[in-house]
């Protein structure tokens, strides 16, 4: 089982869109896939038409009163399941902040471990923040996929993340950033994408363009890779998934 997390400290950069589409493509490749919507806003759950509710809330799961397995819902797609968001996830930090300090940032990792028998790929869709939740996600993940808006500032956040990961003892996750919501008509976007993709390591060759079809995902309530598989944006996600999968 390989665990992928879409992460960025900033919101609105395309984390959920990326998690939803990459998870769909993983499932379409035949990988038994589950996506965990960790964001209390429940955008990924909404996208798959699943009610953002978990029996007993986040507390029951984090405390182990309810197994993660129980919360899993099938989506409309073969091989693709979802663990829905729940509004109580907004308090997940408090729930994780219990017990010995050394173990607090490994709780999600331990909760996910039993899924290894059943799934080949897990996607974690994180809420935007620096918190105990995100720290747990970073510890649990094998690959961290970081969407970046093409600005100089956003590249700094990637540097900060990479630096933070170097403080992890033992195994460290792979990090692959990619440029998201790229507007080719903007000169600055074009320059940053071209320059940094060439110069900086750890940035995917595939940028994901800004596209009206992405907005349409919340209308269709489906991954764009599912409802418009021949579109340019769907092809870009396929290419990005190929890069992520190759890690």
């Amino acid at each position: 089982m390989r665990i992928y997390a879409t992460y960025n400290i900033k919101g609105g950069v395309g984390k959920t869109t990326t998690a939803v589409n990459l998870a769909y493509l993983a499932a379409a490749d035949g990988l038994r896939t589950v996506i965990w919507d960790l964001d209390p806003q429940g955008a990924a759950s909404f996208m798959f038409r699943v009610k953002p509710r978990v029996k007993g809330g986040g507390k029951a799961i984090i405390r182990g009163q309810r197994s993660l397995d129980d919360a899993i819902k099938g989506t409309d797609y073969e091989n693709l399941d979802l663990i829905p968001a729940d509004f109580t996830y907004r308090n997940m930090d408090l729930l994780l902040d219990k017990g010995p300090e050394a173990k607090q940032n490994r709780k999600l990792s331990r909760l996910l471990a039993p899924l290894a028998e059943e799934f080949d790929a897990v996607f974690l869709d994180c809420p935007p923040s620096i918190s105990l939740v995100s720290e747990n996600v970073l510890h649990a993940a094998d690959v961290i996929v970081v969407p970046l808006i093409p600005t100089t500032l956003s590249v700094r956040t990637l540097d900060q993340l990479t630096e933070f990961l170097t403080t992890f003892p033992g195994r460290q996750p792979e990090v692959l950033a990619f440029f998201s919501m790229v507007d080719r008509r903007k000169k600055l976007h074009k320059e940053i994408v071209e320059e940094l993709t060439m110069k900086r390591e750890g940035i995917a060759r595939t940028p994901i363009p800004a596209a009206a079809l992405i907005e349409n995902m919340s209308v269709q309530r489906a991954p764009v890779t599912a409802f418009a598989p021949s579109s340019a944006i769907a092809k870009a996600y396929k290419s990005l998934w190929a890069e992520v999968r190759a890690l």
Partner: protein
Amino acid sequence: MTPGLAGFVVAGDETTWGSALDKALEALGEAFGVVPDPAGAQGGTWRRTWFDTFDWRLYRAGLSLEYVATRRGGELVLTGAAGSRAVTGPVTGWRATRSYHARDLPEGPVADRIAGLIAPRALLPTATVSTAGTVARLLNAEGKTVARLLVERPAVQDRPLPPRLAVAEVRGYPAQARRAARLIALAPGIESIASEGDDTGSYLLDDALRAIGRRPADYSNKVDAKITAGMPAPRAVATILLALLDALEVNVDGVLRDTDTEFLHDLRVAVRRTRAAIKLIGDALGLPSADYDRFAAEFKWLGDQTTPVRDLDVHLLDFDVMASRLRAAKEDDLVPFRTFLQGRRAREFRALARCLRSQRFTELTTGWRATLTAIRGKGRRPGREEPLAAGRLAVERTSQAFRKVSRRGAAITADSPPESLHDLRKRCKELRYVLEFFSPLHDKAAYFAVIGDLKKLQDCLGDFQDNEVQIDEIRALAGAMLAAGPVFGGGTVPVGTLLAMGELTAGLAASQQAARAAFESRFAGFAGAGGQRHMAVLLAGEAQ
């Protein structure tokens, strides 16, 4: 998606299936959005072929084995008794038209479950069903898929079979799947065929077999003659012998194809039973004595023709077990012996095949069938004495055979020669056959009590004699191998091989001695007070 399936079959006939399906879909449409899903993984067309042994060992064990061809090879699907999950395993190079042995099963759970059950029989294709499947998604008010409906339209040899419906659960939405199943179950013309977790395959197999005029478990090597106690004895005996002739003939094709060793075994059993029936109850047929003698001699000839191949089969079937028991010699030492056995079997098999294709064999079976059919169809002649009833004949001949076994067995002492035990074995076989011929007339419990006693004694006598025969044969084969000269890689028989064969005979001799030591207690179990009582109950029931 978790495939928790609730299965249904459309009732009625071909003319009503369409409207019944429409009604089921209408019922679902009132509670769910029903959207065709052409990309659904369970849709499309596929062929599934069921395999079983000639004597239906899987079916009788409540199992069914399907081979489903896929683009990348194929899959074996083993479904068990109700409620258990299917066991699957990938398989390559299989075809729906040929037979396979236990050794051809790919390693894995399917082989683990059935290899021991089927061996040494081969798996034969019993029916091939082509299915066109369509999938519809059942949506809730949010437009979310909460269950799937699978509609399968199967056909066997271009004959359509009743369509199947199944509701597949989407994980996390079990209540919705249950609701869909309830709605379908209430639709007119729809019958439930399986509860959640079951596979619907075995029901489909039943339908397919019916459509091609077969029924499951239509062969067994048990004597299965339709006789009654009140039936005139000539007709009952002719019926028994015709059932034996059916069993003999139905195995010929499998022997000639050399599908597995048990076709010949069952054919030989049918011949032996026929010979025993002619000897023990054949007089009831009222045939001229010249006919008796002729048929008896011809069936002896047939039995003799089958003996060499069967003897070699026994050696080869037991080979691995015997080889594994070697202590001093290595298993590899026996390789030349196995090669020799295989070569000799190939030669003997050609002779057997010539026999079974010969005019003499055809004349024997057709002549015998014509004779028996005429007797069975004959009515009672007016003015003639009422013939003996089958029930009386059964009591008379069973008592005779039992007395004979009891008398001869009681005369055997520790000093008796081996021949006396061999002779007793023959008498036991005769008793067993008489019991089996008339088994439909007996009370089941009383019958199995007697058979149980007798079988223990027969096993002991069988071990005693078979081990002796095998020892003699191994000695004779060793001589034949030496006489065959330089056939083993340019040299003569390796010394290691002869030593290993010697060790085999030593092992067999030990088993023979053990059987001899066990004889007294086995015989006491059969002919003692308990055995006598079992037989008395059996015969008393029959006399009534």
